[in-house]
């Protein structure tokens, strides 16, 4: 399983763009990259998933370079409610029974 490394914490201000980079040097060919968001006292919530290049949805964008050894989650114009822990997961094509949630990145959005 691909091991992931992401920053422990990041601070930002309302209206700014937040970029969180996740390293996964030993990503396998069939691995997908998925990001989850967790608010205090809640279970994680799926944000976005990608395999290569760029994926965008109404919440975030995910940038994956050609070598796929890293990925960057981009949160545009964050608000106070985006304060949460963000987890980068890398796992195989099949169902996520082997997924590992690391420590995640604590994002604090300040007014």
């Amino acid at each position, binding site marked *: 399983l691909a091991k992931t490394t992401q920053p422990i914490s990041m601070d930002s201000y309302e209206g700014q763009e937040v970029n969180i980079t996740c390293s996964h040097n030993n990503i396998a060919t069939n691995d*997908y990259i*998925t990001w*989850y968001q967790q608010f205090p*006292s*809640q*279970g*994680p*919530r*799926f944000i976005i*998933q990608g*395999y290569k290049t760029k994926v965008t949805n109404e919440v975030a964008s995910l940038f994956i370079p050609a070598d796929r050894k890293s990925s960057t989650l981009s949160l545009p114009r964050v608000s106070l409610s985006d304060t949460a822990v963000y*987890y980068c*997961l890398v*796992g*195989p*094509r*099949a*169902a*996520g*029974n082997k*997924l*590992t*949630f*690391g*420590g*995640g990145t604590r994002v604090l959005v300040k007014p």
Partner: protein
Amino acid sequence: NAGVTQTPKFRILKIGQSMTLQCTQDMNHNYMYWYRQDPGMGLKLIYYSVGAGITDKGEVPNGYNVSRSTTEDFPLRLELAAPSQTSVYFCASSYSRGSGAGQETQYFGPGTRLLVL
């Protein structure tokens, strides 16, 4: 849809006591999971199930048991509670379409906070 529901929300156990954490999903998902999350840490997989009657160990299964008699329910059993099992427990479910799909999105319940004294 209620999604994934868990009961109880909070429980205090004495060392050596037993309890069952309940988890139910109404999305007809075939995969279900149990995680624990210690304070300030990420989630660790305890057990998972790929369908009724089929379960398998995750990363930290010791001290726990599971069963999956129906698609909807996936209870987690603690037989002899220990202080090391103080944690927040999350149940999750996902639908697997087999090969050709990406990682299936996992849907999480609200969690059960367990304190063992």
